């Protein structure tokens, strides 16, 4: 469990980091919390020649609400999203998901930006971001651009963050009316990646009719997956049992899990159906509690 040798730099500004990244090209990797990257280096699955540590770069770690949007700096630790009271008002889903990510040691260091930039469909935050319709800000030497979450995940370990770029911020629209959200995954034991996970975010009008639904699925597709048919099955309904059952059924049909030690395809579809149903119900409950 010893990585091959590498150089290490800890720049003190974003510009410096971007310059280094540009100069070193694809021999370099960004180091955020290190809890995905370092295990891969120890197993020598990843052998970057240079690590550029973002931990000394100021201004990348924050949680703030600005103009109806929740903004989260890329270097914000999982534990901060878990414990923020500001977030909890609208997004109890953050506490749901953080509690299911590994263990406190990992959450104390792992970052939200890293969790997304890693581009792993087994990570839990991507599904949550899909459900919440997040927008990702990416900085390069030429400036900043934003990418909608649906255009962010390209493939296995591959995202919209291109060579020479750094993910800087995640923004999430704050719902104005009644809303609720929830996340759960089935795991083999604490700290495990999901056998299957489901993030649900619902918005509804005063009559209780669903006006917006976001559903993201974890680890049942090569990339984090939006359950499009399931969302459509809910919008316009009163979130009655039949609509929920249909949405759950669609999610189980539309995911593309593969067989591994966690289970076969049938089992994972079964899990997705069960958990989707539960998370819709839980989101609905939360919406009416507020």
């Amino acid at each position: 469990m010893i990585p091959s040798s590498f150089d290490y730099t800890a720049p003190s500004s974003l510009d410096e980091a971007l310059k280094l990244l540009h100069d070193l090209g694809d021999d370099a990797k960004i180091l955020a919390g290190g809890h995905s990257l370092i295990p891969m280096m120890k197993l020598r699955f990843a052998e970057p020649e240079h690590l550029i540590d973002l931990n000394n770069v100021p201004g990348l770690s924050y949680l703030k609400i600005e103009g109806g949007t929740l903004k989260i700096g890329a270097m914000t630790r999982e534990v901060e999203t878990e414990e923020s009271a500001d977030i909890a008002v609208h997004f109890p889903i953050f506490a749901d998901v953080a509690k299911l990510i590994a263990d406190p040691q990992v959450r104390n260091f792992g970052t939200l930006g890293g969790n997304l930039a890693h581009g792993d469909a087994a990570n839990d935050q991507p599904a949550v971001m899909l459900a919440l319709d997040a927008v990702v800000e990416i900085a390069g030497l030429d400036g900043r651009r934003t990418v909608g979450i649906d255009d962010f995940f390209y493939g296995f370990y591959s995202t919209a963050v291109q060579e020479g770029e750094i993910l800087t911020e995640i923004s999430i629209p704050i719902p104005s009316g009644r809303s609720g959200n929830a996340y759960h995954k089935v795991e083999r034991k604490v700290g495990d990646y999901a056998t299957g996970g489901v993030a649900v975010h619902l918005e509804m009008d005063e009559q209780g009719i669903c006006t917006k639904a976001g559903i993201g699925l974890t680890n049942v597709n090569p990339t984090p997956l939006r359950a499009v048919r399931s969302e459509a099955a809910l919008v316009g309904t009163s979130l009655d049992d039949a609509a929920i059952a249909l949405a759950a059924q669609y999610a189980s049909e539309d995911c593309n899990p593969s067989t591994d030690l966690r289970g076969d395809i049938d089992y994972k579809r079964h899990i997705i159906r069960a958990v989707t149903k539960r998370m819709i119900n839980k989101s609905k409950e939360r919406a009416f509690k507020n």
Partner: protein
Amino acid sequence: MIQCKTSKEISGMGHSMKRKEDDRFIHGKGNYVDDVKLPGTLYMDIVRSPYAYAKIKNIDSSEALKIPGVLAVITGKDLEQYNLHWMPTLMSDTQMVLPVDTVMYQAQEVAAVIATEKYIARDAREAVRVEYEVMKPVVDPFKALDADAPVLRTDKPDKKDNHIWHWEVGQKEETEKIFQEAEVTVKEQMHIPRIHVASIETCGCVASYDKIDNHLTMYMTTQAPHAIRTVFALVAGHVGLTEEKIRVISPDIGGGFGGKVPVYPGYVIAIAASFLIGKPVKWIEDRSENLQADSFARDYHITAELAGTKDGKILATRMKVLADHGYTDASANPSKFPTGMFSIGTGSYDYPNAFMEADAVYTNKPPGGVAYRCSFRVTEAVHAIERITDRFALEIGKDPAALRFQNFIKKDQFPYHSPTGWEYDSGDYEAGLKLAMKGIDYDNLRIEQAEKRKKGELMGIGLSTFTEIVGAGPSKDFDILGIKMFDSAEIRVHPTGKAIARFGTKSQGQGHETTYAQIIAEELGIPAKDIQIEEGDTDTAPYGLGTYASRSTPTAGAAAVMAARKLRDKAKKIAAYLLEVSEDDLEWEPGKFSVKGAPEKSKTIQEIVFASYTNHPQGMEAGFEATHYYDPPNLTFPSGAYICVVDIDSDTFEIKVRRFVAIDDAGHIINPMIAQGQVHGGLTQGIAPAMYEELIYDDDGNILNGTLMDYLVPTAVESPSWETGHTVTPSPHHPIGAKGIGESPTVGAPPAIANAIVDALKPYGITHLDIPITPYKIFKALKDKGVLDKNIVES
């Protein structure tokens, strides 16, 4: 309740004294093998095979040797020159230290790199180029016996198949007849999965050979330092390393669980490297190496059968085992017991007849198996008997608790002679089960379960009422490579009344530094805190066979009692001399002798000890020391009654252990707090194979879960809040009536959980599931039974 004969100040038996060793562990001051730092140390890393079965065509070390700091790359061919490329296993089989031409399992050692830093060694390991010719491995133990299976052990000229040995015990004909005539027979095929001890500390050593003195000091993670030294001397005697030239030191150990009994190739290569280079060589495995290459445990395929009457009387059991040993039989059993104590498989029940047989085979998997926190294959036997007992209860529609009461060996039947040849020392199985049922409120649970079943909810109640067999063992039957399985204690009391005691065993977390001191305190009245305990250094401790199989208290603990009693006899003589009375006029209470009828005339043990150095009677040897080598007259038979309740989510099939009540009977208990801690840890290691752990191989012999991301070791989160208790049935032959506690929970817990889960699924016609029972496995079983709604699209 536990009664103490000594004051808290003395803290003999029964006191929950805090563990003396914990101070250093809690402060991070433990001294583990990786903490051993000798000047000039070199580091070893090991090149391992990516294939399960392959010919080695070529090993090219040239690139590795170019890396600055790399001193050597050692291969099997190098060791062959010294005839060190093979070594014996504890079961008199043979194991490669490094292969000369063939690798037999994935992750097998292929070559060793020696460098000035561990980082350089790891880089060099990657730079060693090995050319393999891959062969089709034998992975399935059943197929290993097929006529067309390739013969794996071509190194053995006479070997014509992959069969290692056959073993049997019991009444074959009588049992056969009973099965033919019985009203009811049941049968299940079970696999007790291949698992790994996964101790927190991996294995490792520092081999330090001094060329001038021709002396080897070997710091290593071993549970049996003395026996290991003898093995080294047998392996390396021919190159001049005879036994007096070897000192094995086993420092603090971060968990052993049987996995640190064997001699692994890495140890021997490190010794060879230090011998050749003349500098200390350190080798510390990483986690994956530990999991993938070191000895596994279990891996028994068992066909278990039971014959009985319709009203529940059990008449006979029959068990047939196929044991997958990997490419060599590297078990750690007493030599005469190839299946260990598997023959305890009639359990706590009064079986008139039984027949058990086993066949062992070679496959292309890592060698083993060690006794993972169990007394040599007892876990396998207990699982089979407890599961088949429940299967029988299910068949005849009887409550599993009632069935057990009906068939228990009764209290007055002890000493009990089992049909497989054991003499159980003592037990009160009814009392244990009654207490457990009361603790968990068994009758009401059954009522709750009936109601839940009506609603389609999955709730199960599982029992395990097991008998252990520990404390190996009496010299007439028990030896390892000829060395009898006694153990030893040596007590030296200093003039000021404080003591040091040394033992042939070796604690790996069991708390010997405390419990041994308490045993001596009980016998001599010297406060336990004044007694220092030392183990693990072959130069200072008396010879013993080590710590595993719950044997330390039954053997070395008894040796401490006997040595202390020799000292008490001496103390009595000195007291009589000092008080000028005859020995018969003296009375003992913990810590002092006084004159009968004149209690004010007394001598404390400390005064007596001082006198033994300053004023001893003429004709008596001075000093206050004693040694005892204890050869136990019999094994001890701890028992337990465990009941657990599980709730299974009817959507996701996630399993929650709602409650787990464990009543143990380990005879007299030395330190209740330590005993309870042992039970907690053991129970957690019991849910491990029951619900989580299994080493899984694909058809090409690749391990599929060789890291802790996929080899699922349960944590506090998965553990229920254990509810423990005990009954006390002392061992009649042990000097303090103690039986041993360390392993009972690991042995007894898995069938309780499996029985509970199968019980929960009873309405769906499921009669058995192999452990580990996971939500996925339940899903598959229910799907096979056609009870899941077919709403799932197939793709």
